[in-house]
């Protein structure tokens, strides 16, 4: 009688490319990190600490891509080693950008920013999103392949899924970039509206500092957040109702 062990399988710690299918995502993730660094330095200028933090963050995120999902914490809910590297890397990248762009007199008044600078800030935002997305997608698809190969003996073809990901992801990214640019430019409309309503308010310090950007985000996203909360609830109810109707139909079909 063969020995069967149903104890949890532990993933060994290994360094290397887990699946060649996701190499492109790893490369894109690393490239986005480099672009992010270049755009940040273009906007802010050079500072050693910020630059080093950014660089280490990008390297750590790349290193995380080359690790197996080795468990280091006792709970399954906590991140695995590769995800932890990505988290730390992202944190360092944010810290680097925070240091590089802190108290920058040229950038602190959004009313003085040109459209080109807004465009650069949009590129920065989108590059950061892409940096997170590609790095995470690489880990996610590696896990999908892991799961597929662990549960089957066949080679799982992730090609069509990745193709769809690039296609759908790129389309959505265009929308995200547009939305980001609109959000950043929206503060000009806000300032104009404030000026029309009350010139004193229109010339206030708040509307000529980064606070106006935060106010813009709050004006857009707080109502959107509330809407989404209700939207999720509505969708859940709708799904339940549909399922109940479907079941009722099936039961009726059985008894007729």
């Amino acid at each position, binding site marked *: 009688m063969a020995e069967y062990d149903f104890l949890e399988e532990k993933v060994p710690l290994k360094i290397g490319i887990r699946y060649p299918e996701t190499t492109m995502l790893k490369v894109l993730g690393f490239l986005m990190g480099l672009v992010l660094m270049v755009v940040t330095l273009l906007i802010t200028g050079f500072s050693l600490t910020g630059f080093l933090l950014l660089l280490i963050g990008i390297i750590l995120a790349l290193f995380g891509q080359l690790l197996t999902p080795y468990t280091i914490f006792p709970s399954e809910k906590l991140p695995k080693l590769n995800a932890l590297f990505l988290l730390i890397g992202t944190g360092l990248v944010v810290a680097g950008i925070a240091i590089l762009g*802190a108290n920058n007199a040229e950038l602190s008044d959004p009313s003085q920013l040109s459209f080109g600078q807004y465009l650069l800030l949009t590129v*920065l935002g989108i590059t950061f999103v892409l940096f997170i997305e590609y790095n995470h997608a690489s880990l996610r698809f590696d896990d999908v392949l892991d799961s*597929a190969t662990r549960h*089957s003996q066949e080679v799982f073809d992730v090609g069509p899924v990745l193709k769809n990901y690039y296609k*759908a*992801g790129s389309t959505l990214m265009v929308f995200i970039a547009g939305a980001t640019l609109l959000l*950043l430019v929206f503060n000009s409309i806000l300032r104009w509206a404030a000026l029309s309503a009350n010139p004193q308010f229109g010339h206030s310090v708040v509307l000529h500092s980064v606070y106006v950007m935060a106010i813009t985000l709050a004006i857009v996203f707080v109502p959107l957040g509330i809407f989404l909360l209700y939207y999720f609830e509505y969708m859940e109810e709708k799904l339940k109702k549909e399922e109940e109707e479907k079941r009722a139909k099936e039961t009726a079909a059985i008894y007729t």
Partner: protein
Amino acid sequence: MWTKKAVLVVSLAILSILLGLALRNPLLLSMSAALLAYVSISVFANTAARLAAERKLSHEKIFEDGTAKAELLIVNRGGKTGFLEVRDKLPRQVQIKEGTNYTYLNLNPKGGATRLKYTMKFPLKGLYQIGPITLRTQDPFNLFYRESEVPEISEITVFPQVRDVKELYIKSKQPKIYPGEMKVKMPGPGTDFFAIRDYIPGDPFRDINWKAYASTGKLLVNERERLSVSDVTIVFDSREVSGIGMDSDNANLYGARAAATLANFFLKRRDSVQLVVYSDKVRTVKKGTGQKQLFEILTALASAEPKGDLPLGGIVEVVLPYMPRHSPVIVISNLEEDDTLSKAVSTMKVLEFDVTIISPNSIEFEIMAKQKKGIKVDPVAYNILRLERDILIQELMGYGVRVVDWKPAIPLTQVLLEARNY
């Protein structure tokens, strides 16, 4: 539903806003704007999947270590599925030997279909449920997901493994006086007419069929339908304590294999076998012979999960009136946590049943499980437990019962041979 990633992205966006305000850094604010746009747009990129599925199985009843093929047809009845994860839910004991029960795909709207084919291996006995099919649709960035199920469920019964045993000397002490009640479709000692055959020198004179001799001119003898040699009762302990150990090594599993092997052996020998399984309730397969009886016994053993704590004493009281007197009774139990054992065995002996106890040693199963998991085993505690078990076995043997202490390392055939000294 939000994924962990979505929560982390929103948290990062909020952190960036706060840091951006504190450090007067517009870069962080533009990053948070992009992050929030990323999350908001993804909400609407997640669509629900409406699928229909059908599963075909090559076998619905197999033996341990057997394989069954499954073919799952999934058809999209709704719009575009987006990123869809499909998993045919399998019990964790099931191993996939070929193919896959999991896929990640993007089905075409209205009629787009995919087929999953896989071969499962069932190493352990039991009643297994295959399905439902779980679906998870995601947006391309895996920020939100929706889960649903297609209630397509199939069942597979996995019978315990049956070993081929050459000889067992477990039989009634007085097989001729108490031959049992079951007729077996073969010639032998009995009362009812079975067939006519040619006379062979040595046949009793009274068996000659004179009427047949008159019409054919040949000496022919009557044969009678044989009655079963003995009625064997197998009592199988499937209480919760029988599950001590690992999924693959425990008293319940070993005991079921022993019971299946014994039942197969006795039924092949044309004996009549009855099975009593006790767990949280008592399940009895009434005595019978033949393949159908074996099938019923195997089904009962397959579905005997470790649960409940009914005592053997109670079982003996309930089942005893239905047990053929003086017949062999084989109790398969780990003898754990049952205060009524001595009383039950003594009652059976008083009624002159030939009792044999095959006892898979749960202490050893527990030690094995602990060692496999890397848990330290306290030798003193286990030595005390072993001593207590030895005392109990000695006490039971004192009633004239044969007890076989079955350690996991001993193969089943050897254990059954140990029970032969009757």
